[in-house]
């Protein structure tokens, strides 16, 4: 962090740099818009990077099982933010590896949906809002992360990445994942959302003693006990919490390595 900049300024500047590198070095980009707090911050950062515009499509891979509040948010802000919104749907559950535990299988369906969308549009770069602090395997990610032809992640053979020099040449037919907010934490996201006045889905705020910390499919995402009904209160809650963010996401907890298996197969 440099003098004259606070922590959030430094995070923002780094993310803008990553966005601009991706836009300069890849030909066909899309931003994965999950409608959650992280991807809304990403869109905001993209607009900062490109002076009010998002110069690539916002892709929502829709499981059709999201909360109604999420669909309402999508309709409103895709227009208000002038996004080139592309909605693509996931295949039926039967098309997915039946050996996975139920919630993981449901999430793997999303991976299949993503693969279909990739084939359809031929994107060479997908911008995704994962963060290192979310989950141990995500901590090992690169900012520019090559994916195989099948969309898979080879954690054993990641190229070196240093000094903000990124590996941006995916082999023909493969693509890159770009992670502009990899270095942010959950608290950073909230503090920035508040500072920049970025709209959020109200499900994140507590109602009747419960709130969602992370939003996924309605049938495999559960609220956590909380009285935090404003962003300020969320920040206070996080300061004292040692409960992991994805505690309400069933797919992380079914087996020890369920999440890693998903990621190797191309899940975010």
């Amino acid at each position, binding site marked *: 962090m440099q003098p004259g900049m606070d*922590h959030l300024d430094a995070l923002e*500047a780094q993310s803008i740099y990553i966005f*601009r590198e991706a836009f300069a070095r890849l030909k066909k980009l899309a931003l994965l818009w999950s409608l959650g707090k992280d991807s809304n911050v990403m869109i905001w950062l993209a607009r900062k990077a490109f002076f009010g515009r998002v110069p690539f499509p916002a892709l929502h891979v829709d499981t059709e099982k999201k909360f109604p509040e999420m669909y309402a948010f999508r309709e409103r802000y895709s227009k208000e933010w002038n996004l080139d919104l592309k909605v693509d749907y996931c295949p039926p559950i039967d098309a997915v590896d039946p050996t996975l535990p139920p919630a993981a299988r449901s999430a793997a369906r999303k991976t299949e949906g993503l693969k279909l969308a990739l084939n359809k549009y031929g994107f060479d770069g997908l911008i995704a809002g994962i963060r290192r602090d979310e989950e*141990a395997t995500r901590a090992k990610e690169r900012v520019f992360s090559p994916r195989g032809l099948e969309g898979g992640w080879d954690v054993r053979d990641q190229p070196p990445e240093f000094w903000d020099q990124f590996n941006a040449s995916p082999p023909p037919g493969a693509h890159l994942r770009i992670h502009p907010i990899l270095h942010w934490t959950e608290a950073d996201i909230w503090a920035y959302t508040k500072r920049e006045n970025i709209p959020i889905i109200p499900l994140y705020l507590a109602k009747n003693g419960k709130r969602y910390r992370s939003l996924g499919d309605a049938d495999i995402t559960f609220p956590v006990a909380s009285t935090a009904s404003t962003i*300020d209160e969320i920040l206070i809650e996080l300061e004292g919490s040692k409960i992991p963010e994805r505690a309400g996401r069933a797919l992380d907890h079914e087996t020890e390595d369920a999440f890693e298996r998903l990621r190797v197969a191309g899940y975010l």
Partner: protein
Amino acid sequence: MNMIAPTIAPNTILATPNGTTRPQVRIVIVGHVDHGKSTLVGRLLHETGSLPDGKLEMLKAVSARRGMPFEWSFLLDALQTERDQGITIDTTQIRFRTRSRDVVLIDAPGHAEFLRNMITGAAQADGAVLIIDALEGVRDQTRRHGYLLHLLGVKQVAVVVNKMDRVDFSAERFGAIRDEITAHLTGLGLAPTAVIPISARDGDGVADRTAKIAWYKGPTVVEALDALLPARPLDELALRLPVQAIYKFDDRRIVAGRIESGSLAAGDEIVIMPAGKIAKIRSIEGWPARPAGAQSAGRSVGITLDRELFVERGDVIAHVGSAPRDTRRIRARIFWLHETPLAAGASILLRLGNKETRAVVVAIEKAVDPGELASAEAKAIARNHVGEIDISLAQPLAADPYVDNPRTGRLVIEVQGRIAGGGLVLSVDAGQRAVPVDIVPVESALRPDERSARYRHNGAVVWLTGLPGSGKSTLARALERKLFGDGGSPILLDGDTLRAGLNGDLGFSPQDRTENIRRLAEVAAHLARNGHVAIVAAVSPSREDRAAARRIADSAFREVYVATPADVCESRDPKGHYAKARAGVLHGFTGIGNDYQPPESVELTIDTSSRTVSEAAGEIERMLISTGILFDELTDVAANI
């Protein structure tokens, strides 16, 4: 346990969410494989109260289920593959807090095979902890990591001597290791900030000075981390704004990039390197609002200039009087990660800031294994070794020696689209031309001034770009006739004509079009260097390709945009191409589609629908006079005719 950050009152948190006013330091833990890095990290998390609820219990349960004793390293080795092999293969990042710092801890693998991951982790760090097994002592990977820290520019290193329990907490053994590593690191200019005896497994020396190491009077690991300083300020150095991109989303032409050092403000007089063009900053742009005041190092900004200059990605903006040097030759100290050793003559892709250029390794000056005690020098730099090399660049770029500016004084080398090495710029030879290996160009017998005295002009490339039917060839022929009539030496290079011969092997794919333009530009630039005025008439629809042509011809390049309206071009249709394309029998034809990218900044723009051929050629001639190609006395002669 006295190092856990004190509870902060809620209202303080509101003002500074997640402790954002506390300095953040990023620390990498390095050292030989199995010397206990992951164990130390696990222990640190526990000692600072940073573990999520249930994490320790979950891992203990996993260990029990697998029938193995619990290890602190399991906390980090969350990946299945790592648990199975018992080694860290990639970096992991963990956050925790000490009394006065937010710490981002980067655990890097010690295994030689994963050095690229160690470098990925260490390059992000403000400080490092180098761990040494008390029983094994300093090993090759200890030395290698020490050397790489020095190369990566990490200036603060604390050394921990781990597994003291296995040497009965012997002060003597500790002293021997301390002296050996201190001498080694000091030799690299990297004196350790502390050398600490610990047992990561049992906790001695991590957060507390236990009775077993009562003889040790220095800081604990947590105290040593607390004393590391955050990244050093870069805003005191000279301004360096590498250009990431030029955006023209609306009527603004925004030059975007991150300020790597120094600061800038609207009104500043700047110079764009390597070309050396001067301009003033008109405005600093931003969304949702323009930022107020000066912007300094670390900020990603967008600026507009007070004049239309050719600026491209990879250029570096600096203040007049403190600009970086422009060069085609660099000497660098590098580390090499690719399995094929780097040898003299190797063709590489070099990245420095946002600049990318092809380059050739002219010479390998030193090549050593930093893990070995007695270095045997080699002629090529093997994987995981380091060396000093001389690089000759295909394009000039702006760079600083690393000692002057750590951000614009470092580079990476790419092989087959993948980063294969990196290093520090030791020196730049300003203004030197590239020296291709094994190619000995034969210099012309004539001096440039001999030719220009005869032709009364300097060499130039006049590049006519525009839609098919815009009048490029007609204009080129008129200009050729005019210059020849004045005693000059014009040479016409028509895109279609060259496609019949030199470029006969090329089609119309984007790659082939790019290669077509490159060859045209190389031939034209050669003619220009020998005093002729090469007049190129080529659609050249890609802005990027034309920018490449400009780089090749350099200061001799004069771009003329023949901006005849598209409907006029189609109605002329001199070669019948528009009709064929409309009929669907000619594919990939520029003009019908939307694939012509008009220039953003050219020396001259001409619409041939509103003037005669002779008037248009006259405009080009005047431009060539005003930009120093045609000599002034020629104007006088012309005026008197």
